[in-house]
């Protein structure tokens, strides 16, 4: 089959590889009909996430048709069914899964020993990601083996198109969880850093959940226009001071809830001198992530507010004003998304017409064009916001 394979930093190729096979009785094989490139894939592309290996198949937003199931799937999934595959692989039985904390499932990480050493305690297996999360082959491919397939799937009604359903596997529940864990109140101002696909979903989630006002921050005009369409007030951080503007919009009190939809690769520019310092340290391997947004959120957030972090961080950050956070009594919520915890509810909301996540797609291409589309998405060329690939 054809698949997008990671060969090294910024080196992704569309290779011919052997087809995946059932390895365990709880496995299923899914023929992929649509998959997407995620902001997290860019961190892998830039080799900022440790423990990738040449030959790894990437991709963790995918959907398709079940073509084979193992004996242990026990009728929970049948050949011919149409499913979205969540990027977090979960068993559904361990203590964490029973609590709904699927992204820290205690059984699905097949490299548990290595992950225990690095993280203290291992987290769940993820598709198309580092070997620290199991190194499972990803779904930017024609076929995908889904481990723990009896639980790790989202069935979608035929009434939804691929474009409407695909993002149930990652960015929609990610934006949703980011907003839900803010515990949004009707009096809240919610500020969202980053108007990429995750930020766009977080904006819509915060609006649907009834925030008083939603403020979105980025510097790309096309993404800001999409954020305004979703009901956000926008701040272009290249044009104005984020802190001043947020204080202005909240009567000097600061946003009650702050969402970081950017993560470790914050924009580097003269308007934010600390990012130049971070970038230099990053090049010399003295720091792994650029936490500009964390610093800004901690500073501007209203005391006793919530900082919600769906943006991915990989390792060590520097100059975090912990004293400010402590004295202001901030709450931090973060993590990889517990995808299936939210998807039944979100499927219903899509069906009822509360939200149609396909609004975010700006580019559709063939899987063979994937390597070039990584460049287009990374460089934000051609007003690209979200790329869908058709294997």
């Amino acid at each position: 089959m054809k698949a997008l394979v990671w060969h090294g930093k910024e080196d992704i190729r569309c290779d011919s590889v052997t087809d995946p096979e059932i390895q365990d009785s709880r496995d299923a094989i899914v023929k992929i009909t649509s998959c997407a490139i995620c902001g997290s894939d860019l961190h892998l592309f830039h080799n900022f996430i440790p423990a990738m290996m040449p030959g790894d198949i990437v991709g963790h937003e995918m959907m398709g048709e079940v073509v084979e199931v193992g004996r242990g799937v026990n009728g929970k999934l049948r050949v011919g069914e149409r499913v979205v595959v969540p990027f977090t692989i979960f068993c559904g039985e361990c203590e964490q899964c029973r609590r709904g904390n699927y992204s820290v499932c205690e059984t699905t990480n097949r490299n548990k020993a290595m992950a225990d050493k690095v993280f203290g305690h291992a987290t769940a297996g993820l598709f198309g990601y580092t070997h620290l999360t199991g190194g499972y082959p990803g779904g930017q491919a024609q076929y995908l083996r889904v481990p723990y397939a009896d639980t790790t799937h989202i069935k979608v009604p035929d009434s939804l198109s691929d474009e409407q359903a695909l993002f149930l596997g990652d960015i929609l529940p990610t934006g949703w969880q980011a907003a839900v864990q803010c515990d949004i109140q009707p009096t809240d101002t919610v500020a969202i850093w980053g108007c990429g696909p995750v930020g766009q979903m977080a904006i819509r989630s915060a609006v649907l959940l009834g925030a008083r006002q939603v403020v979105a921050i980025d510097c790309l005009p096309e993404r800001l226009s999409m954020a305004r369409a979703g009901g956000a007030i926008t701040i272009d951080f290249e044009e104005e001071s984020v802190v001043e503007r947020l204080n202005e919009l909240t009567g000097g009190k600061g946003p009650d809830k702050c969402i970081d939809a950017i993560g470790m690769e914050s924009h580097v520019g003269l308007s934010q001198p600390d990012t130049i310092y971070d970038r230099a340290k990053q090049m010399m391997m003295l720091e792994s992530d650029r936490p500009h947004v964390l610093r800004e959120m901690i500073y501007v957030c209203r005391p006793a507010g919530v900082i919600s972090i769906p943006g991915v961080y990989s390792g060590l950050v520097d100059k975090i004003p912990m004293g400010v956070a402590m004295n202001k009594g901030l709450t931090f919520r973060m993590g990889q998304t517990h995808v299936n915890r939210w998807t039944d509810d979100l499927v219903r909301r899509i069906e009822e017409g509360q939200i149609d996540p396909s609004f975010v797609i700006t580019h559709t291409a063939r899987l063979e064009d994937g390597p070039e589309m990584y460049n287009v998405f990374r460089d934000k060329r051609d007003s690209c916001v979200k790329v869908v690939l058709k294997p």
Partner: protein
Amino acid sequence: MTYLANMSRNEGDPRILSTGPSSLGSQDRMARGLGWFSLGLGLAELLAPHSITRALGMEGREDLVRAYGAREIAAGVMSLSVDRELGLWSRVAGDGLDVATLMGAMREDNPKRGNAAAALALVLGVTLLDAATAASLRGKTRRSGRPRDYGNRSGYPKGLSASRGAARDLVKPDDMRAAPAVTPPPSRPEPAHPRPM
């Protein structure tokens, strides 16, 4: 490479049969080559400045050569990073310094004038390569054309105003509740914390 990649696979996972075109363009690969060149030259300048000054008839300027070495290494690291375009432009600037310095070694009375001339020719050649690669990288990654307006992509089939608060029916799990401090204050000025019984 493909062989190594396949060696480390988990048993049963897909293996590479043949490899296709890469996301790395020729200009990216050229930038990497120049980055490694910069690192190599930088190390030589930093660690063996005497052999360089001797060859060019510039004895006594070892400290300058060492400083140039540090500069080459910084430019090399940058050229090998995601910010390679900036790295290459910083190489171009550094090439300018090299040229100016080598011009100084072209004095009539320098017995090593021939070597200095050869070095100058080399630096000029590399400068061209640096600039051409940087320019081609810029062309490849530049955001051209007017940014599109996505003002009609609300994502709410029922429109924005009907959607504000539409999902307030969500039954929030307890563990998603924030500390009560920023929930709306009670209307009566009564303490929100539990009182002793």
